[in-house]
């Protein structure tokens, strides 16, 4: 049936949380009330990426992109846009007064600089409908692989594309497949790492929610390439929508014969099962992940043997990340040369980043490798709120580091980020401005690793704990001479001595902040001062008498009664009582309160 209008509405986790299912229900209701339910089709899609502005709704053929849609807006959208053909300008994304208000998605600033390969179907198709995936060339790459290519040709194509693992370490994917392919064994496994755990990172979730079939297709291709008939997707239980859509996708693929026995009438058989992770960060480490799939306590083990030789249940296994898989079908369809034409010399293709922190457009962006941080933060991300100054970008999550302003123009790729003391990681990108204390940031990430260390090796188990204790001391104004050097000694030994990647990279947030912001550490330790005004133990709130009008508002707001004075005369803060909550400062209309 041909419809005159299509409404795409985001059903990613973020938009679902801000009521997109309710919006859909209302849409159905109002379309029916106007008798146009058969003329307009509602498509439930995955994530558009612009999570900051969700729920997102796009209405075609106009291509009007509405943001911050609430269920209360639905009646107006239906009556105005769909019945009368008048675009609801107030909900439009971007320039509401521009001539051509109905900018297509591609022309909205946020999307204009992006190049969507892994996210190509996210926000475009209904992830719960395999036909929509197939309509977008879905499973064509698998068909091509199993009917026209030898396994070695598939591996060669992936190798030639230059694709590197998107989970963090950036190991060449084709090489990994080659290692597993050359093992002789009657049973091999293909695993998908969907145990996305970096704080703030959600690109894998979005792919699984928005385009689950691409992962299944790629895993089947990998199975064909290495000679495996069984795949496992290890996905965290905290991603219920992703799990649900994966289940639907697996069922549909089995029904269509795209998973199961004799795929495309060939001798190749492949099936996929889901395994739920219980939320341990370390289970994103490959050996820990496989140990967890085996039903044991999720802990890493030493390598060698590498999984390609002895992985899941001691069988040759490949493990790739969700985003890595999402690139595979496109490489086979468009060719390795096409893929390799994107990006930098050693980092090919695109990379998805989850951009967060102090930035206007929080969300998911996919950019060609080699794009600079400045472009991501200012051109795509819309810059920093309230005109604050950029201080640093944190990439690579708890394993990564901070990149300061002087490196804003560095092209983003695996090797450049490592050279800067950070890493690509899975693609979390947290923007920090002048109000962020770098010691505090380092402490935050270390607290995460302290909690998430599996406890197997002492450098990580005890070392990160001791580092965190030192950082706590420093941020509480109890830092001692020599603490910074102790941090460095510990960091170096943990890097060298820890068993797995989690431990080896755990000191990175400290090392990189020490590298670029050592003066901040020294101010904390030597002067007992937090330059960014974050570490409360070292702050004192006081009222500037010249500015205070004696309005008493701060005294009324203070939760502990620490502020006193006479009306129309300057008030004073009793620092002994003050709990440094900052309520007075927020409430003062005359900027008469300072902290230092």
């Amino acid at each position, binding site marked *: 049936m041909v419809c005159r209008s299509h409404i795409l509405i985001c059903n990613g986790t973020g938009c679902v949380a801000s009521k997109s299912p309710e919006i859909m229900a209302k849409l159905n209701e109002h379309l029916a009330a106007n008798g146009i339910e058969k003329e307009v089709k509602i498509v439930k899609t995955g994530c558009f990426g612009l999570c900051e502005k969700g729920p997102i709704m796009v209405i075609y053929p106009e291509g009007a992109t509405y943001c911050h849609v609430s269920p209360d807006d639905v009646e107006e959208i239906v009556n105005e846009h769909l019945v009368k053909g008048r675009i609801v300008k107030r909900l439009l994304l971007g320039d509401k007064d521009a001539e051509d208000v109905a900018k297509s998605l591609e022309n909205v600033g946020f999307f204009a600089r992006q190049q969507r390969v892994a996210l190509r179907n996210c926000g475009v198709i209904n992830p719960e409908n395999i036909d929509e995936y197939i309509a977008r060339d879905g499973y064509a790459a698998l068909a091509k692989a199993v009917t026209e290519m030898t396994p070695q040709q598939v591996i060669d194509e992936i190798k030639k594309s230059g694709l590197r693992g998107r989970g963090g370490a950036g190991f060449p994917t084709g090489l990994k497949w080659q290692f597993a392919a050359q093992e002789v064994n009657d049973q091999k496994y293909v695993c998908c790492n969907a145990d996305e755990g970096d704080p703030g990172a959600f690109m894998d979730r979005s792919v699984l929610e928005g385009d689950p079939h691409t992962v299944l297709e790629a895993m089947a291709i990998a199975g064909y390439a290495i000679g495996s008939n069984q795949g496992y997707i290890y996905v965290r239980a905290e991603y219920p929508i992703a799990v649900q859509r994966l289940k639907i996708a697996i069922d549909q693929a089995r029904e269509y014969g795209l998973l199961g026995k004799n795929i495309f009438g060939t001798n190749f058989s492949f099936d996929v099962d889901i395994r739920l992770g219980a939320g*341990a960060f*370390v289970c994103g480490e490959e050996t820990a992940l496989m140990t967890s799939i085996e039903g044991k*306590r999720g802990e890493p*083990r*030493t390598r*060698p043997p590498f999984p390609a030789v002895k992985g899941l249940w001691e069988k040759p296994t490949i493990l790739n990340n969700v985003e890595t898989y999402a690139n595979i079908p496109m490489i086979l369809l468009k060719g390795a040369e096409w893929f390799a034409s994107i990006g930098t010399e050693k980092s090919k293709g695109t990379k998805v980043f989850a951009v967060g922190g102090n930035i206007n457009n929080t969300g998911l962006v996919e950019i060609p490798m080699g794009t600079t941080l400045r472009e991501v933060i200012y051109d795509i991300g819309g810059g920093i709120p309230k005109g604050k100054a950029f201080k640093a970008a944190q990439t690579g999550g708890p394993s990564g580091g901070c990149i300061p302003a002087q490196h804003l123009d560095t092209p983003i790729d695996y090797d450049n980020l490592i050279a800067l003391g950070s890493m690509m990681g899975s693609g979390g990108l947290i923007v920090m401005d002048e109000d962020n204390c770098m010691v505090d940031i380092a402490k935050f990430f270390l607290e995460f690793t*302290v*909690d*998430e*260390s*599996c*406890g*197997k*090796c*002492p*450098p990580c*188990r*005890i*070392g*990160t*704990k*001791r580092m965190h*204790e030192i950082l706590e001391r420093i941020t509480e104004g109890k830092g001692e001479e020599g603490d910074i050097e*102790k941090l460095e*000694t*510990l960091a*170096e*030994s943990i*890097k*060298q*001595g*820890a*068993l797995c990647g989690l431990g*080896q990279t755990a000191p990175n947030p400290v090392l990189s902040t020490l590298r670029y912001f050592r003066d901040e550490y020294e101010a904390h330790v030597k002067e007992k001062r937090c330059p960014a005004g974050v570490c409360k133990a070292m702050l004192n709130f006081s009222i500037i008498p010249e500015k205070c009008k004696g309005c008493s508002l701060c005294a009324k707001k203070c939760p502990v009664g620490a502020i006193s004075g006479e009306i129309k005369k300057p008030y004073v803060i009793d620092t002994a009582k003050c709990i440094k909550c900052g309520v007075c400062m927020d409430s003062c209309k005359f900027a008469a309160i300072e902290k230092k």
Partner: protein
Amino acid sequence: MSEFVTLTIDGKEVKAPKGSTVLEAARSAGINIPTLCFLKDINEIGACRMCIVDVGARSFQAACMYPVSEGLKVITNSPKIRETRKVTLELILSSHEKKCLTCVRSKNCELQTLAKELNIKDIRFEGELQNYPIDDLSHSVVRDPNKCVLCRRCVSVCKNVQTVSAIDTMGRGYKTIVASPFHMPLKDTPCVNCGQCIVACPVGALREKSSVEKVWEALSNKDLHVVVQTAPAVRAGLGEEFDYPVGTRVTGKMVTALKMLGFAKVFDTDTAADLTIMEEGTELVDRIKNNGKLPLITSCSPGWIKFCEHFYPDMLDNLSTCKSPQNMFGAVLKSYYAEKMGIDPAKIFVVSVMPCTAKKYEAERPELASTGYPDIDEVLTTRELAEMIKEAGIDFKNLEDSQFDDPMGEATGAGVIFGATGGVMEAALRSVPYLLTGKDDDNVDIKVVRGVETVKEAEVEVNGIKIKAAVVHGLGNARKLLDKIKAGEAEYHFVEVMACPGGCVNGGGQPIQPASVRFDLDLRAERAKALYEEDQGSTMRRSHQNPRVLKMYEEYFEKPGGHKSHKLLHTHYVARENYPENLE
């Protein structure tokens, strides 16, 4: 023949078998790499990071796990490696409760040794310590998590070797702890009290529940007649506590020391072992002749008994009803001996010295009190006996030898070998022909059942009756064999099971040897040798020849399997649930 590869370690060319590790290659070349979590064949997980070496990879690698390869270049000693190891060790020390002076493992602590070896002079990174409760509710094993270094040797031995899994790592990060399920006291878990975790522990986080004070108290009580029996394996282990080489038999000095400690009589559990053979052999013959439940499975090892009660409750009828030699002896002492000597059994206090922690639990079993008094009053491990000897200021090495006391001081070689895996079986097979036919055969040395191989089988034919026997040691191995028997894949008349790998000589109550010693030496084999030597030198090598035992039957028990025997020397078992259904 295994293939060899050539690698370079610290500039030295080393040949090593393919498949071996850098640690093995280095040690064979005389290069010592420190280890902590590594325990050969038991715990090889590369967790503690003490053995890190530079193999040219991005980070240092654990030598205990890293495989050798042709042309591999390894550096084991560089400023950076030394510093990294030191920092790691200081971190471990920073989280360890350092009450070394009063620690049971003082001077036999691998952490202490390592700190000395790595020249630790200062702990730079002190911080928060853990404060966990100590679990001392078990009759056998005390766990102190505050001293635990999380090396996981105990976990591996419990989970992989014994397949009991009473403990495992729980929690994450700094809060990681080795604990029982739901943090239940060990006594409420299927822990079989074998104590293998204790002898695996490099530090003082695991120890036996001490009976030393209670024994001192009894010895100073003038109203009590305090006697002691020592199991065969004790004499093969005790010397290690006094710096004798592993496998040195110190029977005579041990007896002297026990007398000096004040025991009224010092008896040899071997006598009861001979008695056990008479009873158990008779039971076997009876079951074979009368279509009884087969295979008959030995019941000497209390760790094994509890294991069977938890995991194979459907096989309890296969267990021999014989009490263990320890408890047979206790019952004899409080009945026959009491009567013979004219001592009120209420005043007899029986101490046994055992290579075993499970014996402490066995002594507490309420059903093992057939005289109306507990068969056994207190159990000391070999280690505890050494503590008492030292505490009493006895110069052990310079002691004269003495003999065990009568009227139960005589034993056969068959009783002695009870302490090694296969020993009970060999002793039984030496007597079964006699018990079946009244005549001995020519077989005394039944070597097929000796040694540390996991499963050993033997077949003897007596008067046309074929007796198929199997010997298994270590509960994981027992589990495999029992599963085979249950599945009908294996059929035996008689099975010997010992809970501990190697049997009692390697029991959980024996002296603790560090991983470095266990790297080169198989304690099981070395200590067993001491027992087989004694057997070889014995004039009597068959239990049914023991005149003391025969006299006991004549004077008291009448005949093996008789009425009095059943009352005093036999017992019964209970099926145990693994975990309580209603957890609080």
